[in-house]
């Protein structure tokens, strides 16, 4: 009658807890190592046979998955290219999906070893290149292949097309859209007032005074884009001092920001801030709203930006604005690189992960994008040239900004430079803070120098950040 209870409720709970802890503890350990799964070298070339029509050996009836950053340029230009590729490879499926959260969305897929076949790694949430370098396939063979018209792709591109996508000597990102940095203005407004587009910082200061007399400002900035002035200053300093300045920046040299080229420009900018040549309140203004004060309200007369600006402000540009661009100003009128030289680099980096299911398919889609048809479609609909040269007609599809881009590129010739240091080490967020303070007058040129140097020093002294030396 007295069966002793072998398992009291409390004991049961204890045992249950221990049991589950053990069970899940094991899985925790497994999960903790989940990061280290799938190390197999999945460089499946596609399984098809290579031929002139199929240079990467994409398999028949394969599926290609592309994730495209859906930003200022949209993503339908890739869909357009995918349709062309689809026609060439009947039976295969090219799936193009948009994303604005590249890093967040693709991070688990990189860890899990099943990334998509093609990625447009762009936008504010792009994946830092130094974190995924060794997981990307080299793209040299894409440029060696023939395009859909039968010409070798390398011969159809602007010179230096490989440079912005080459890290540590490895060409792993194909930057599709040709971007150049300049100073943009309304030709009609300048003509009306008899203003000359300024070539030096002295001329900028003069123009600032003239604009103020007319109740206008020289510049405007927005909080997320304060570093456009950083780009303008850095490019001006590089033109002024040549490779010495550029390599100093790229290799995170000590006291690089104290170089006279930077100091001269920072001082001139400081004067502009003090004289009230900037539309006040930029540090609290969203950047496209700030840009509209230049393109629509014409409160400010100049804006430093990349050539995407026309497309970005398309809907907020005053009728008859006649947007034109000029190279960024230099400190003196005798800079080391000629005034006409440009920072130009292709943007929108497309990458093919080495572990993608269909490596060849990803490359094939790139080949389709570089075809004359797809590249022309892009230039025409986005009013921006791709790295495929000679596709923008003289009338720039009716856009004055595009015309001036072609003119600037022609004038620059081979005097084209670029640098990657700030994007490579993800320094933009920190620099924004310093530049917002500087442009709103809270710190002076010395404070700006100190702030920028600290950011550079922090990266240099952080042993956990892999440095990529630049020698040329």
């Amino acid at each position, binding site marked *: 009658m007295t069966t002793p*209870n072998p398992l009291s409720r409390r004991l049961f709970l204890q045992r249950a807890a221990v049991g*589950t802890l053990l069970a899940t503890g094991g899985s*925790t350990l497994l999960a*903790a190592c989940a990061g280290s799964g799938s190390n197999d070298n999945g460089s499946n070339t596609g399984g098809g046979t290579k031929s002139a029509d199929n240079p990467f050996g994409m398999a028949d009836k394969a599926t290609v998955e592309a994730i495209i950053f859906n930003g200022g340029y949209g993503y339908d230009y890739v869909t357009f290219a995918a349709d062309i590729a689809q026609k060439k490879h009947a039976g295969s499926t090219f799936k193009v999906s948009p994303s604005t959260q590249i890093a967040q969305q693709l991070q688990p897929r990189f860890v899990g070893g099943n990334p998509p076949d093609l990625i447009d790694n762009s936008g504010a949430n792009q994946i830092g290149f130094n974190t995924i370098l060794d*997981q990307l396939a080299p793209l040299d063979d894409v440029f060696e292949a023939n395009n859909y018209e039968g010409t070798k792709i390398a011969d159809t591109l602007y010179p230096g097309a490989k440079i912005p996508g080459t890290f540590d000597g490895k060409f792993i990102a194909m930057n599709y859209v040709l971007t150049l940095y300049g100073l943009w203005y309304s030709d009609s407004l300048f003509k009306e007032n008899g203003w000359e587009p300024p070539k030096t910082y002295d001329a900028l200061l003069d123009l600032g005074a003239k604009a103020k007399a007319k109740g206008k400002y020289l510049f405007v900035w927005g909080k997320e884009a304060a570093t456009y002035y950083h780009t303008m200053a850095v490019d001006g300093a590089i033109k002024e001092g040549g490779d010495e300045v550029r390599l100093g920046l790229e290799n995170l040299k000590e006291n690089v920001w104290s170089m006279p080229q930077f100091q001269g420009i920072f001082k001139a900018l400081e004067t502009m801030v003090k004289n009230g040549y900037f539309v006040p309140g930029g540090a609290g203004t969203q950047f496209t709203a700030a840009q509209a004060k230049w393109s629509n309200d014409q409160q400010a007369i100049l804006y430093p930006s990349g050539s995407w600006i026309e497309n970005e402000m398309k809907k907020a540009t005053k009728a008859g604005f006649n947007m034109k661009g000029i190279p960024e100003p230099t400190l003196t009128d005798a800079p080391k690189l000629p005034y006409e030289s440009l920072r130009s680099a292709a943007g929108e980096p497309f990458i093919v992960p080495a572990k993608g299911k269909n490596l060849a398919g990803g490359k094939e889609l790139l080949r389709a994008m570089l075809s004359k048809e797809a590249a022309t479609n892009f230039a025409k609909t986005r009013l921006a040239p791709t790295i495929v040269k000679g596709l923008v007609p003289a009338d720039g599809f009716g856009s004055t900004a595009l015309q001036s881009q072609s003119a600037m590129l022609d004038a620059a010739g081979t005097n084209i430079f670029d640098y990657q240091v700030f994007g490579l080490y993800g320094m933009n*967020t920190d620099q924004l*803070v310093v530049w917002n303070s500087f442009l709103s007058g809270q710190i002076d040129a010395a404070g700006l120098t100190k702030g920028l140097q600290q950011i550079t020093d922090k990266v240099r002294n952080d042993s956990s950040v892999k440095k990529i030396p630049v020698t040329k």
Partner: protein
Amino acid sequence: MTVTHEAVPGGGPKRSVPRRRRPLTFDRVSFMVVFLGLPLAVFVIFVVSPFAQALWYSMTDWSGFSSGMNFVGFDNYVKLFHDDIFLKAVRNNVLLAIVVPIVTIVLSLTLATLVTIGGSGTGTIRGLRNAGFYRIISFFPYVIPAIVIGLIWAQVFTPSSGILDAALSKIGLEQFKDYAWLGEAKTAMPASMFVMIWGAVGFYMVLFIAAIRGIDPEVFEAARIDGAGRFRTAISLTVPLIRDNVQTAYIYLGIAALDAFVYMQALNPGGGPQNSTLVMPQQLFTTAFSKGQFGYSTAMGVVLAAVTMLFALVVFTVNALTGGRDQRKAKVGR
């Protein structure tokens, strides 16, 4: 043969004999497995194990995008405490966790008092006239998602085109023309705090209203007969009686303030002027996704969790030291 005591209804004098356990049948075991084992397993797998994982990751140099990682011990933590930007974020979070809950609780308690016991001085205890209307109005902000609140206020604070600038210049405060509320280091943090408080007051008001409604109205009537004014009633009666609710509200608000990610990301995605509104989760986010340092950012997450627990501990301790425990004992004893 004996008759079990349990069989005697009402219990005999030997009632203190321990009740015998029912035998462990299949029914009972399966019941325990389903209703105890399963939830426990789910909890451990989805709640406890990620914590353990986070601890592990925080001691590696994992980039977040690769499959490999190296164990680096406490290097990440050492680095954290030398990272001026992260320390700035910690300070901002602490400031938020102090100011936002206090102001929110004071405001919502005031409003709750007004709409429940702040009404006419004669007759039954009641709130202001149209109390229901005020209650609904002040609850509105809570219905709007935090991200929307952030975006709306970012527009309000925009220099020159924002409503705030326009309103201030209209009434003659010309010095605020084109003033970048979110762009000046002096005002960015107060402005952001204001938005958070604006978004939270309504909910905590409703919480306090419910608590006050739970108090026997006779207590208030007695106080009134003794000659206590409304303010005295609120301070000496309401607050002590709903002390537990206030403590809970303080902890919830504090946790919200230690997070604050949504508001800050909407108002000042870059961390604000001189990083004056940067909070830990924002720094964690950029470190993980744009700098590709998941190990380091996980360490930030662990610190954030530690700070949150420390905060809760401090609130409990302060409450206990200032007499909260005696109060509860008294209540239980009653």
